[in-house]
């Protein structure tokens, strides 16, 4: 196993860890808004690491640029959707979870 | 260059292209437009179908590879006697129905919508279906046929028609889904979908997947053909549609899937079919005859009566299967001829009956059988057409239906299956009974204060021509059956 391959495998692993964290957050967080936080931030980072890992192995410049494009696109998509969902939920009157409230 | 001339001997693709072209033109011209295009297109198509029939009777089976590619990737088209008969039948019936529909939609402009383009696409799908040489292509044409037919049923737009169309669509999707499942399993087993290649591969000791496949295809097609327990969608769909559409559906569209059952039963899957399956189909056919006739007898609306009559007549077609399965060559041949004659004559007669009923309803402004009094004297030609259609359904001479019944009974006696003779005879009597139910009302005097509009002559005479053709087929059926012999 050569160095680039090892490196990309490590990056894949890191990405997966983020994905796992995102999933855990999704399972544990108490309301829509907090779950959105988990999804938007953690999973995108996981994807970023995966793309990074692939970039190392990319056969050329153009394929590499394409990978980056995919990442940006995914980012954009998730940010937009995030905003729309949150806005809609808020407009519809879903009250955010409050730590102090739940402790009572 | 005109298609059908000597410079273009290959008429097969044109039979699919011509309706596609005029349908698209009609579509571009917008709703309600395109009657004239349809008429011209059908005239050409009829010519093509005649030409094809002649080519087949002279030089045997015709085939054509689309785009010059052969199987497995290309699409093969193929026409034998049976396809030629059905193609010819389709073009002729639709030609007359087009004449009818043009007059009908003048009187009924709100129902026309996209009738013309949809009819064109339907014809293209149907012609392609009759010409397909592989079962996957058949699936595609079957599905397209179903979708266009649903579009035609829904065109009127009321709750009943849209509901009926929806029911029809779901039944059709279910049916074609089952058919496609069969295609998938057959392909998985033999690695081909071409009927010609499959035929020698299939043997009686096929893997069980093939039996499942054949079963699924059969059930799917039965659903589309509306054989007895699967008939639930047919009466609303055929009864609610505008008269030209009802005629088109009852006369031709259900026949398309019946044609497939027959073709697959006889050609590639013959080694697999069992007497028990054939008897079961026969029994279902019998049930359809009894149930359809009973329902027809109890209907209060004219078009529903005719629609239930279609249910019964479809049952009649299925009596064919016990007679062609594991019987003597002679009996099978006779029964097959009878079955095909029944298909042809029923198509002509049913188109005539729906067309005549449409004229009657248009003139009276009502659809109940109780209000038919006086029609016999006001619309003699239409009632005559209806009665002639009824004669064909009942299988009485001199109609083509009589020849069909004769041949079927001959096949049944020849194979020693007396029971089916009784069923066929009773089926004819039951048809006579419900046709008579309409006629007796028509002969009664007109109700006081009833409204009456004189219909266009084209409405009456196109129906009459259809009925007359079904009648005259009785003395000129030899030609049809010679064509059928070419396989």
């Amino acid at each position, binding site marked *: 196993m050569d160095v680039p391959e090892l490196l990309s495998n490590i990056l894949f692993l890191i990405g997966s860890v983020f994905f796992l964290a995102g999933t855990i957050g999704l399972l544990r967080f108490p309301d829509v808004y907090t779950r959105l936080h988990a999804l938007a931030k953690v999973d995108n980072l996981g994807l970023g690491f995966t793309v990074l890992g692939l970039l190392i192995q990319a056969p050329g410049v153009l394929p590499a640029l394409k990978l980056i494009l995919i990442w940006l696109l995914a980012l954009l998509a998730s940010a937009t959707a995030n905003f729309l969902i949150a806005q809609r939920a808020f407009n519809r009157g879903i009250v955010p979870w409050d730590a102090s409230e739940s402790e009572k | 260059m005109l298609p059908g001339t000597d410079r273009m001997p290959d008429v097969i693709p044109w039979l699919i292209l011509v309706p596609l072209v005029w349908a698209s033109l009609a579509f571009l011209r917008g709703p309600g437009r395109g009657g004239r295009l349809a008429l011209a297109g059908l005239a050409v198509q009829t010519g093509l179908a005649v030409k094809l029939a002649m080519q087949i009777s002279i030089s045997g089976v015709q085939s054509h590879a689309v785009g010059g590619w052969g199987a497995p990737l290309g699409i093969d088209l193929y026409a034998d006697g049976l396809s030629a008969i059905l193609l010819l039948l389709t073009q002729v019936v639709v030609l007359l129905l087009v004449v009818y529909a043009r007059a009908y939609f003048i009187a009924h402009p709100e129902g026309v919508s996209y009738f013309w383009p949809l009819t064109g696409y339907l014809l293209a799908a149907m012609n392609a279906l009759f010409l397909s040489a592989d079962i996957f292509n058949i699936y595609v044409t079957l599905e397209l046929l179903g979708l266009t037919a649903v579009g035609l049923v829904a065109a009127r737009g009321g709750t009943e028609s849209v509901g009926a169309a929806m029911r029809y669509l779901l039944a059709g999707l279910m049916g074609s889904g089952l058919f496609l499942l069969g295609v998938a399993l057959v392909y998985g087993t033999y690695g081909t979908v071409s009927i010609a290649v499959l035929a020698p591969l299939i043997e009686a000791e096929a893997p069980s997947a093939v039996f499942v496949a054949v079963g699924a295809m059969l059930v799917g097609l039965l659903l589309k053909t509306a054989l007895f327990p699967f008939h639930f969608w047919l009466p609303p769909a055929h009864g609610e549609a505008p008269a030209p559409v009802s005629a088109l559906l009852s006369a031709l569209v259900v026949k398309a899937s019946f044609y497939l059952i027959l073709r697959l039963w006889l050609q590639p899957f013959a080694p697999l079919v069992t007497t028990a399956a054939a008897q079961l189909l026969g029994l279902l056919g019998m049930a359809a005859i009894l149930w359809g006739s009973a329902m027809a007898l109890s209907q209060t609306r004219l078009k529903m009566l005719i629609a239930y009559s279609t249910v019964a007549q479809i049952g009649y077609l299925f009596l064919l299967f016990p007679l062609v399965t594991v019987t003597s060559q002679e009996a099978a041949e006779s029964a097959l*001829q009878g079955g095909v004659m029944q298909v042809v004559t029923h198509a002509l007669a049913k188109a005539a009956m729906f067309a005549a009923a449409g004229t009657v309803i248009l003139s009276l402004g009502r659809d109940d059988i109780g209000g038919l009094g006086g029609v016999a004297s006001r619309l*003699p030609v239409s009632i005559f057409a209806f009665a002639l259609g009824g004669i064909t359904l009942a299988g009485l001479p001199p109609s083509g239906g009589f020849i069909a019944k004769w041949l079927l009974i001959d096949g049944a006696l020849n194979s020693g299956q007396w029971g089916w003779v009784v069923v066929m005879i009773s089926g004819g009597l039951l048809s006579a009974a419900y046709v008579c139910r309409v006629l*007796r009302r028509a*002969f009664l005097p007109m109700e006081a204060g009833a409204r009456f509009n004189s219909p266009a002559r084209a409405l009456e005479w196109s129906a009459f021509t259809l009925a007359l053709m079904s009648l005259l087929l009785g003395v000129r*059926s030899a030609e049809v059956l010679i064509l059928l012999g070419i396989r």
Partner: protein
Amino acid sequence: MNLNEALPLLVLGSSLVPGLIIFFLAETRFRLRTALNLAGAIIKLLLIGYMIWGVMDNQSYHFRHTVLPGLDLALKADALAILFVSLSGALWLLTTLYAIGYLEDSPHRSRFFGFFSLCVTATVGIAMAANLFTFFFFYELLTLSTYPLIVHRGTDVAIRGGNTYLAYTLTGSAVLLTGVVWLYDLLGQVDFTYGGTVASLGSEYDGQLKIIFVLLIAGLGVKAAIVPLHGWLPQAMVAPAPVSALLHAVAVVKAGAFGIVRVVYEVYGAEFSESLGVLPPLAVAAAVTIVWGSLRAIWQDNLKRRLAYSTISQISYIILGTAMLGLISTVGGVVHLVHQGIMKITLFFCAGNYAETLGVHKISGMNGAGRRMPLTSAAFSIAALGMMGAPLTAGYVSKSYLSEGAQQANIIWAEWVLTASGVLNAIYFLPILYRLWFKSQPPAWPRKHIQARGGKETAWLLLIPPLVTAAATLAAGIFSESNWSPLFWVKIIAVREYSP
């Protein structure tokens, strides 16, 4: 196609073509319609005359069209066909005349005459059918073309009668069809030939042949109104008088009887039928029908109903004659085919005259009608006497041949039946004659439909036909031994049937 082939088609066409044209004529084209009708009828008679001449000259007239391989539509004019064709041709002309007078003002005349012509076409087709398939073809066409005639009036009663008629006849023809197809399946083409074709099959088919025989006779028996298949006939008498006349004398019931004659002699063959043992049951059925029809006739007060039951009884004379093996009984049976036709049509014409002129439908209302309508009543009396078998009438000829035939065949009970039937005939006809001639007229007749013109008792178109047929009844009886009588012709046929 030479003339000999075309002639059977022309005979058919002479009524078919006018019929089809008439369908599409406007109601008001009275003259054209009449001209077409009469021209067709006269042309038909001329063609028939030419054919009779040719048949005597040993010409043969055949037409054949192959519908399917092994299934021909074939027509021929043999002696038996000529007998029936001439009967229908002649009576069609008379009935048409009568119908023109009868229906002068009623609606839907185009429809009526169209179907009337179709009906005659079918009858002629039945007569000339050269094989069972063709026979069946026209037999059904007859059913279909008579239905609109029966329901012509459009009243509830008429339509109910028509439906009963259709239910019976269609069921009958379904049974018949089964037998026909079965026979075709065994034999291939079943042509009518002297002496029959079935015998060639061999004895292992006897069982099947018996069943087929039963199917065929049951199918034909419906139209021939053999008890218990006769239920439709009394109901169908609601049709207009010309229709009843045609139905009872020529078309429907005769078609059934004619079919039985063809089946027994020319499909099965007289000897083979006898050896198969199927004739005695047929004879018994005929006998039962004769007696039962006569008995029921006695209790009817409606004149047309009584005549209808009389028809049921009389038709079975033909069948009885056919079912008894022997030359003489055959002659008696077949000649009755003609004689009964002439007599019964006279009776119905007269019944129509009473109804249309005086409004009398019931026998109890016929008191003194003989003095009001002497010519009609005279014709009626002649025909009624003929029915009873009085000497000098056509009925006497057929009945004497029948009883002689029964003696020859050594069937004693048949003689008793014939005698008993004669007595019963007298019981139901003589009271009518008595009322006609010897009771006094009522102060007023129920209503007057048809104005008598020129001092005649009724319209001349209604009067001529019964007088002609009554004269024919007498002529056939008095000149029975002449070369032109039906009897002479029937004797030729019978000889051929027994020595193929």
